[in-house]
């Protein structure tokens, strides 16, 4: 077997394993953090402090029957979870966990990641349409409108960093943050990006598509078993991707206090920063009420996009001058 092929197979297995592991860690973290925010112990039953609960939940979901509702388009209904999950795995291929821990180094890795995460919208559209359920369709409409709108401020805020580094390569961007993290020079871009990221991943307070008090469960109302868990995995993988982009572009990626074997152990700092941001996401979710759909759109078009554009313009002028 050619070594390159072997490497790719190992990498693919590792990436999928990582996505599952991440979903389990993040799922546990979310439930435990939310529990402590709400002054209750949370998971306590399976394993010490319930650490094996998510594993058990995973087995339970695998064992569940996938019910296809009457009148649903069977093919599209089954396709949607896969369509949602598969593109979420791909960003991990170019993720710079450490200087030498990156499976494929691409010059356009940032664009690749953004392109892959955007496919999720199509999966939601397919899921909502194929379910033959009004609540699902409702959630889908909201989700598509939201994701497409929030993509704009997100890209604009990332673009201001790209103007400074003039590279789309994630390693290149990290290397450009040699002396300071870009959050110091681009705080507005970071805030805009993070808010858009919350909206992109359908997290509260922007969890319109699955607003359970209005739409029962939004686009995945009709999904059970592994169909549901693929959406669940995709959501957590997306959260990780959004936070890791923020880490790479604004928080210096794997840079930190140097450790032995720095080319590989940089993953420690990378994970620390990403999970720190993920913690903030969870914190926000369990603190704030949900915004209304029209307020969500107003916020995007009237505040985020103008501010992101202004930020981009100022950055462009300053980059030109300096």
């Amino acid at each position, binding site marked *: 077997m050619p070594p390159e092929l072997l490497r790719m197979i190992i990498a693919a297995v590792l990436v999928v394993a990582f996505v599952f592991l991440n979903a389990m860690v993040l799922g546990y973290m979310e439930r435990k953090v*939310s529990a402590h*925010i*709400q*002054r*209750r112990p949370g998971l306590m039953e399976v394993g010490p402090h319930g650490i094996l609960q998510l594993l058990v939940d995973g087995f339970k979901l695998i064992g569940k029957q996938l019910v296809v509702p009457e009148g649903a388009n069977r093919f599209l209904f089954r396709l949607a979870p896969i369509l949602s999950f598969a593109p979420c795995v791909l960003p991990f291929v170019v993720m710079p966990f450490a200087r030498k821990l990156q499976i494929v180094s691409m010059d356009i890795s940032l664009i690749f990641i953004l392109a892959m995460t955007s496919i999720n919208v199509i999966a939601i559209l397919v899921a909502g349409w194929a379910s033959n359920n*009004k*609540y699902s369709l*409702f959630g889908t409409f909201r989700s598509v409108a939201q994701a497409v709108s929030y993509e704009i401020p997100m890209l604009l805020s990332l673009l201001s960093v790209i103007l400074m580094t003039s590279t789309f390569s994630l390693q290149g961007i990290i290397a450009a943050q040699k002396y300071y993290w870009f959050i110091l020079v681009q705080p507005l871009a970071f805030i805009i990006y993070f808010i858009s990221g919350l909206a992109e991943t359908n997290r*509260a*307070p922007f*969890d319109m598509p699955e*607003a*359970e*008090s*209005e739409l*029962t469960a939004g686009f995945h109302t009709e999904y059970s078993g592994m169909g549901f868990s693929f959406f669940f995995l995709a959501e957590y993988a997306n959260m990780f991707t959004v936070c890791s982009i923020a880490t790479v572009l604004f928080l210096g990626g794997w840079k930190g206090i140097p450790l032995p074997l720095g080319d590989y152990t940089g993953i420690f700092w990378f994970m620390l920063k990403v999970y720190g941001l993920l913690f903030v996401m969870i914190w926000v979710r*369990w*603190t*704030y*009420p*949900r*915004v*209304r*759909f*029209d*307020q969500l759109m107003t916020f995007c078009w009237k505040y985020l996009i103008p501010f992101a554009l202004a930020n981009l313009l100022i950055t462009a002028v300053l980059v030109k001058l300096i």
Partner: protein
Amino acid sequence: MEILAENRAVHADLEPAAPCSNHYYLNMGPQHPSTHGVLRVLLEMDGEYVVDPQPVLGYGHRMHEKMAEHKDWMAFMPNTGRMDYAAALPYNHGYVALFERLCGIEVPARAEYIRVITSELNRIVSHHLWIGAMLLDMGAFTPILYTFDDREQVLDILEDVTGSRLTYCYFRVGGVCKDIDDRFVEKTRAFIKRQRERFDIYNKLVTGNIIFIKRTEGVGIISPEMARRYGVTGPVVRGSGIAYDVRKNEPYSVYPNFDFDIPVGRNGDSYDRYMVRLLEMEQSLRIIEQALDQLPDGPFLGKVPKKLKMPTGDCSFAVEAARGELTYYLVSGGGDIPYRLKIRVPSYSNLSVLPELCQGMLLSDLVAAMGSMDLVIPEIDR
């Protein structure tokens, strides 16, 4: 489609959507996360906008009024606690006070004080539940756990004296069935102190939150004229700026002995209704504090004849339940089974505003407006 056809047959007054319009029906309930119980709202929608919401009732109907006509009047007593399960004691209160008025029974002062203290505690419990449920409707998961933490404290206190935690059957004609002791007084005082500090947390977590304000301010405005037209009572009418409270306007029990305010709103929107209930909790604490200070000694149950015969005639009694004015109206033909017992529940009138209030609203606003009404469905269906 079959269900829709069925709906149209059942609700003949419901206009079906015109064939070429973009309107469609959305069934909110009877099993839906934000209808709290088995309320069903049939929504005619135009995209995200609600064109015509029609509440459909009857899923939790248990014929309480009919039961009252077939039972010894005392045997109906436990039923009163099962209508508004979130605030059962005012329902007990109205029922026993009705017979006291009808038969001319004297109630010892201590019993009246105990009734007021426990009823007000129950009102606070009910508002605890409501804050949590309303915020849950609006997508905030955490406040309900905080309010339930406080709610548990009160439920423990009430459990000690009444024997149950939710569907109380504590009051008796002529008094209450068990006296309160020093431990109760001590624990209640401790709770008052604790709850006063907790308001600070509520305000930080909810009241001052920009998203919460944006979601509730100007949403679901009930004008005073509209409130009068529908016979809306309780915190909902007070949110519209009308200071109508049975405890002040038609005082019963020992309420005239206490100094308390009736908080009123200004605009009649969801935010005002929220504020009114929050301030009401503080006023309830004031009432309890004064009642504990003034608590007289004496018997907790007056002299009541063993076999109580109702005189012929009719009688009504109104109390301020947690959700508004609750009236019992009884027609008696003598004997111990009422001829007819009419129960006027506040949530029913409050819900009747919904179709007019929510026309042209966004679906999310409908959920927020409905949450601010504090509906308890078993009370509406009873």
